[in-house]
Each structure stands twice: as C-alpha cells, then as structure tokens.
C-alpha cells in the first residue's frame, strides 16, 4: 500500500538528491548527469567569486532575521489575546477570519497588498484626495523589508496561533484557580503558568523557523523582485532560479541550492543543539 507514495518520492525527491551531482559538474543538457564533465569545486569557486551571490546571501540573512524577530512574537501574543476571550462564539469567529489568508496564494496576497498600498492603491487614493504627499510602498526598496514582513504577518500570523492555542488549552485550569486563590493576579498567572506552559512549543517553533530562515518566502520574492529591483529582493532561492533556470547555468544554480541546503541543515541542527543545551526538547527528546 505504501508503494505509490514511495515511487513518487524516489522519483521526485531522491532522484533530485542524486542530481545534486550537477553542482560538481559542468552540466551540459544533452550529456545529462551521466556524461557531463566533472568540475570538482569549480562551480563553488565561481559562486563565491560572484558579488551578486553575496548580495543575495546578505539579503536572505537580513530579510530572514528581520522576519524572524518581528514575526515570531505576534502569533504568541495573538493566541494569548484570543485565549482570554471568554465567549466561544466570538473566539471561533475570530479564528475563522484570521486563519483564512493562510490559504491564499502569494499571487493573491501580493495583489491585495498592491491594491491597498501600491501607487494606485487605496492608501494613496486617500492621500491624494486629501492633497497629501503620496507614498508608494510596494516599489520602494527602502521599505521593502517592512513590506514583506507585513505580508508574512498578514498571511501567516493567524495560522501560526493554532499550535499555541492548542498548547494553551492543554494547561491544567486547576493551576490558574490555585494561583488565583493564592492571590496571584492576571500578570503573575500569565508569567508563572501560561508562559511556562507554552515554553516547549515556543522553542520547537523557534528551532523550525531558524531552520527555515534561508528559505524566506521564495514565491513572495520571485513575484516582487522586479518591482523593487534585485539589489534589495534577490534571495538565495531566486538567485538559484534566475542563474540556474533562466540563464541555463544549471550547475551554478545547483551549487547555490546545495550551499543553501547545507547551511539550513546546519542552522536547524545548531538550533536544536542549543534547545537541548537549555534543557528543552527541541525537535526530539534526547
């Protein structure tokens, strides 16, 4: 019964792993992986000599870290806020609304942002009609990092609360009652009961997000790269796409992709080690 799934994975996940060999070749489409000439580490030498690659790496780290710092606390705060709402009806309604954008495509989200904040968008329409200075946020490289972060927040922050809400509902309500009887106010209850209850999940999500730092929204940047210019919006994934597929330099693209994968694995491994060091479970129990 597992055969169809295994076949698909072998063809579309394991065969490409083998295809990573192209990163060490001068890949030549007619010759294929079997007959292309070996390049050793030449592709990586080319890669590291390319200032555009370093620009992409810098953008990736910068955008990824800003997103991590600004995004990460929001679902937690939202979950706490929602958890304090007593009415089940209101809570369910808010949940269904904030989950919704998670299911929108990036094309749709970016189109909506363009309509709201772009040059002809709702914001500038309002500013213009009141004779104020217009402000095109969607094409401005200076505010790009805030734009993409707010897009991620709009799309994913609501969905991000699912995990935290579940952890919150697993906290034993008797603890709150006992604490309240002992005279702990809402602040102390949050500090001594709620947050410790969330700690394991927070650490787990942090480890996962750190591992994903280098994979910052590929589709998101791909769509907006041309609007703000590649100096600001080129990330490792779009670099691999443009130099690998668009210009046909497959080996260089594969090398960039491999570089990213290795660093990502190291990041997730390091974050997990750190979690264990602080006595948390991380991805798995030690």
């Amino acid at each position, binding site marked *: 019964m597992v055969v169809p799934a295994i076949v698909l994975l072998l063809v579309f996940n394991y065969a*490409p792993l083998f295809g990573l060999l192209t990163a060490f070749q001068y890949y030549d489409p007619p010759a294929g992986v079997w007959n292309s000439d070996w390049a050793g580490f030449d592709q990586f030498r080319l890669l590291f000599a390319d200032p555009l690659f370093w620009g992409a790496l810098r953008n990736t780290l910068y955008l990824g870290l800003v997103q991590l710092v600004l995004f990460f606390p929001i679902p937690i705060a939202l979950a706490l806020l929602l958890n304090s709402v007593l009415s089940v009806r209101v809570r369910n309604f808010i949940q269904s609304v904030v989950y919704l954008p998670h299911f929108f495509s990036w094309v749709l989200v970016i189109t909506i942002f363009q309509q709201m904040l772009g040059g002809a968008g709702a914001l500038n329409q309002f500013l213009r*009609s009141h004779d104020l200075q217009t402000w095109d946020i969607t094409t401005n490289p200076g505010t790009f990092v805030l734009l993409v972060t707010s897009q991620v927040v709009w799309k994913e922050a609501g969905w991000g609360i699912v995990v935290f809400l579940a952890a919150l509902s697993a906290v034993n309500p008797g603890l709150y009652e006992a604490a309240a009887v002992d*005279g702990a106010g809402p602040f102390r209850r949050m500090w001594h009961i709620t947050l410790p209850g969330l700690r394991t999940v927070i650490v787990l999500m942090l480890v996962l997000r750190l591992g994903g730092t280098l994979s910052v929204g590929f589709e998101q940047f791909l769509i907006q790269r041309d609007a703000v210019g590649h100096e600001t919006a080129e990330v490792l994934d779009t670099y691999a796409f443009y130099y690998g597929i668009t210009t046909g330099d497959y080996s260089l693209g594969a090398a960039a992709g491999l570089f990213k994968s290795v660093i990502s694995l190291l990041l*997730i491994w390091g974050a997990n080690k750190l979690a264990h060091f602080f006595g948390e479970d991380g991805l798995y129990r030690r």
Partner: protein
Amino acid sequence: MTKVFTIGAGTSAARAPRARADRPPWQERPSVAGQSAKGLSLGGVLAVMLVPLWIVVVTSLATPGAVNRAGGLVIWPDGFTLQAYREILTDPTIRTALIVSLGITVAGTALSMVVSVLCAYGLSRPRSPGHRLILVLLIVTMFVSGGLIPTFLVVTGLGGYGQWWALILPNAVSVFNILVLRSFYAKTSAELIDAARMDGAGDWRILRSVVLPTSRAVTAVIALFYAVGYWNSFFTVMLYMPTDSEKWPLQYVLLTYVNRGAGMPGSVNAGFGMAHAQTAPLSTQMAVVVLTLVPLLIVYPFVQKNFRAGVLTGAVKG
C-alpha cells in the same frame, strides 16, 4: 497587551457578582480599560484582515461610473453591476484558466489523497514489513531535498516540460500530511479492527469500512491542504510552461494580467513603457481576484472546524 487589568483586584473577585456564566468563579472581573483595550486590538486585527477583502469585492461589483467617482478602488458600495463578472466569465483566456485550475486541483487532490491515505494506512498498522525503514525514507525528505535545479532537471528529463503532469506529480506527496493521517489511523480502535478481521475483512475492506469512516475530519482537512496547494500553485507553471499561455491556470493569469502584465495603473510596470495595449478596467481585475477566492470560500466553512485536529498532531509530532 493582553492583560491590562488592574493588579490586586484578585482577592475580592471571587465574591463579586458574576457577569458571565462562562467566567470561572475565581477569575477577576476585567476592568473597563482592560476590556476595551482587548476589544480594540481584536477589532483592529479583524479590520486588517477583512477591510482589504471588502474593498476588493465592492470594487469588483461597482459600475464604471462609481470607479471613476471614487478615483480608483471603491470603498462604499455605490451602484451595483455584475458586468465585470459577465466579462471575465465570457473571456476565453479566463474561462480556459478556470477550467485548467479546477482540473488540476481535482485531479491532483484525488491522486494525492489516494496515495497518501494508502501510505498512511500501511504505515499505521504495527508490524507491517519494513515499517521503520520506510518511515525513515519518508522523514529524510522533510529535511534534505535536491532543491530547485536538480528537481527541474529530473522533471524535464522525464519529458515533463509543458506537460500537465509536471504541475501535479512532483508535489503530489506531502510527507507531513502522510504523517498526520498516519497518527490518526494509528489511533483507530484496535478492537474495531480486530473485530472486522474476525469477520473476514481484508486490509482494503478495513481501510474503507472502518478506518476512513472513523477519521473523516482529518481526511477532510488534509484534502483541503492538498487542494489549496494545487489551486494556489503558480511557480510550477513558471518553471514548466511559462510560454504556453493557453495552458495557464488562474493564479498565473492573475499574476500576468493583474499583478504585472496588465500594468496596475501606477505600478512600476506601467512606467517602464512596456507595451500595454490596454489595462483591464479595475472592476474586471478585482473580479479576477474574487474568482480565485470563490472556490476556497465555498469549501472553507465546511472544513474549518476540523483544523485543530488536523494541524495539531502534525505540528506536535512532526
């Protein structure tokens, strides 16, 4: 910002008259300031989510006159016409795109579900042959992947360029989804399965008559995840059929004609002097946006209440 209540009100709270039946007796009554801060922030969150959608929908229903009067997007309904929808639904490009999108979504979801359910059921039975090895084989793919270029080379090497299957097969299996399904199937009561086996049911029969009916909720959630993935995909189109405009699904049409090609008035594209014969009227563009939303909005309410079950097991055990 959640707890703006006054501290120290705790001790007498238990004796205070209860305002709500669902407030636990030990919990303080919130202060007016705290309550309104909470209401304001939640209201703000809702507004940020809903206002853009509202504007899009209202503009798509607005008459050209209303769009002119508003100078662009329409915020308050001002006249009503389905003209924009009539236009896009008779437009051959958009009609084809809609059919393509629906076709890929239905075919892809069906395939993904069959493959995933079978795999998850196989792995959920203890002592199935090669159990651990297969599980490792699956989980490895969650952490290492060949990446963009090698995958592209494999798919094109198999002749996938410009083919429908290239949009479906490479992402047909989500290991995450299989693991979620598996953890649910593993919880199906062993007595029930043993009883079925006693009655002579084989694995297929057990899956169909016992396991699937007892895990409808999670199956629906996973099907939604797959369907949304197919419905929203545009990057695979960019990779494998960037020039076959008659094969484009809706998302790619949205990207090309609304997001960039048609040159949103005022966006950079319009300024670069690219040859835009005609920018589609704003209402029409917004109608395309709404069209990509409709199928999701139809399915969403039915599945939404089961989310927690579906996401949780995956997130916590994943």
